[in-house]
């Protein structure tokens, strides 16, 4: 029943979907990996990024690809504000985040998620909207590849690679890496821990919101205030799969999820495919709590 053509197609679409999942989760990964905080309101900032793409398209005619850098700039500022409002009190003067602080940040960002999503309903109404962006399709034999999805996939990989390069090759990057290993080590390399942590949070938000913009290519009429409730859990799964703090982990996790969903759909029902995609998390946590990536 299942023809090779179908599997090739599912694989191709699964990989492209996986790329956009990766970039959507990548911001969460950066914050989680560096400041060790899981932002429960992650999905809401994806949503804001998506609305950014919608409004810039509506008023300025920008495509989602062009919106991404604008969203990222906004995200950087939002991330700074977020750090000082929510994390600074819990993180300053601490070597490692305590379990108690972890619970505080979980609860506080959970409150933020309720707040932002409902504010969005008031501001944007619950009416789902979308961005029309269709630069055409590319034909590889029998395989039609929508260019929009392809661009987004390439851009996603570039963003993830870019953050990796930034962390590996720049001074600020090495300060961030030092912070993620050991907070006091940050001071040894001559940087202020709070500044490093807030910058890392800002970068995380920048990527998150840019990811939200790129995601709009995949959800033609799916931008709505409650979309975060789906993409936050997907992001959690991806980061755990890849391993928090590992930049390429986002890509590994995202591609795994994308391919599992699309390939499993070829062999079984969509419901089972989705259930499986979420349930992978449990055995991974039991047997490889540090993530799939070494």
């Amino acid at each position: 029943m299942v023809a090779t053509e179908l599997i090739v197609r599912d694989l191709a679409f699964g990989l492209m979907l996986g790329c956009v999942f990766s970039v959507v989760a990548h911001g969460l990964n950066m914050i989680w990996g560096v400041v060790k905080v899981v932002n429960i309101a992650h999905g809401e900032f994806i949503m804001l990024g998506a609305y950014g793409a919608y409004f810039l398209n509506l008023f300025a005619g920008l495509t989602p690809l062009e919106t991404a850098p604008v969203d990222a700039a906004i995200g950087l500022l939002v991330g700074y504000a977020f750090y000082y409002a929510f994390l600074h009190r819990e993180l300053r003067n601490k070597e490692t985040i305590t379990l108690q602080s972890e619970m505080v940040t979980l609860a506080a960002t959970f409150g933020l998620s309720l707040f932002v999503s409902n504010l969005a309903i008031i501001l944007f109404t619950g009416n789902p909207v979308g961005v029309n962006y269709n630069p055409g399709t590319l034909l590889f034999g029998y395989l039609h590849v929508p260019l929009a999805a392809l661009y987004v996939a390439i851009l996603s990989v570039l963003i993830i690679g870019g953050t990796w390069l930034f962390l590996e090759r720049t001074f600020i990057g090495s300060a961030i890496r030092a912070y993620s290993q050991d907070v006091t080590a940050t001071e040894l390399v001559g940087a202020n821990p709070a500044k490093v942590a807030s910058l890392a949070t800002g970068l995380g938000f920048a990527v998150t919101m840019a990811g939200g913009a790129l995601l709009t290519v995949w959800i033609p009429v799916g931008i709505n205030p409650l979309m975060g409730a789906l993409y936050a859990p997907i992001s959690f799964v991806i980061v755990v799969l890849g391993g928090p703090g590992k930049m390429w982990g986002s890509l590994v996790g995202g591609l795994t999820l994308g391919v599992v969903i699309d390939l499993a759909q070829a062999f079984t029902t969509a419901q089972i495919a989705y259930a499986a995609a979420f349930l992978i998390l449990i055995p991974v946590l039991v047997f490889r709590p540090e993530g799939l990536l070494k």
Partner: protein
Amino acid sequence: MIEKPGLTLYGLFIVMALLAAAALLLGVAVSSLLVLLLVYAALAYSINFITGMIGYVDFGHVLFMAIGSYALAAMISYYGANPLLGVGLGALLGLVFALGIGLVILRFRGVYFAIATVVLVLAAYNIVLQFPQLGAGGEIIFNLTFQPLATYFTIWTIVLIEIVLTYYVNRSRIGFGIRAIKNEEDAASSVGVSPRTLKLTGYMLGGLFGGAAGAVYAWSISGVTAGPAFDFTFSLLMLAMIIIGGVGTSIGPLLGAIVVYIPSYFLLTTVAQAQPLIIGLLVIIMALFLPDGIVGLLRRSNERLRLLLE
């Protein structure tokens, strides 16, 4: 041996007595409004056993509510059983699932546990849709003759049991062990506390009462549908209630349910989104500045209140 109960318990009994009287005296109209309040309270107490007492943040508690809802709906629509039997089955299944799930995911600490609870809900939602026996689109609806007082007093009894149980667990030996785990799990095990057993106990109590409350909820709306049944809104409301009321305490969940539900009743029809907006804001403030919620605030404000409120 258990100590003499304090005023907190009597206070809670008085509130419960008033709720019972309200339903009997003011009739059907009031009772059908208060049913939802009590369902919320029951859910808040149920998540209090795990998130409030043990400190493991459970974003997926709605899972047990859904299990209870489906148990009751299936019992009624396929076997024509008495709804009380459905509530019993819901509670039992909640307990059994909590046992199975807890054995695996209670090994994960902190945020990993929280995330595991989220993905379980999403997976369960898709699995339910896979079973045609649970209705097209996971929808089972049924029609029972009108039994407002039966529903009301079932959930009332459940809440009462939860209050007494919470109160005595907090005061008993188990309560000491549970608080030790919440503070320092490793240190607790090195003075002889078994975190595994106590965490599982808390989680199973949560599952049991979550299932029971979910069953009553399905009973009160005469059906269950997959989308709303697995809607995270309920999980979030439960969490918000105990965070606002005061985690781990025996007053907190009821207080939180009242604070969250009663204004919602008025706000819903004026500024629809204002209520979750305010709840979100309250949760942020409580989490960052008042970790023990309203009860903690009251206890800190006055020495006598500190002794009275548990």
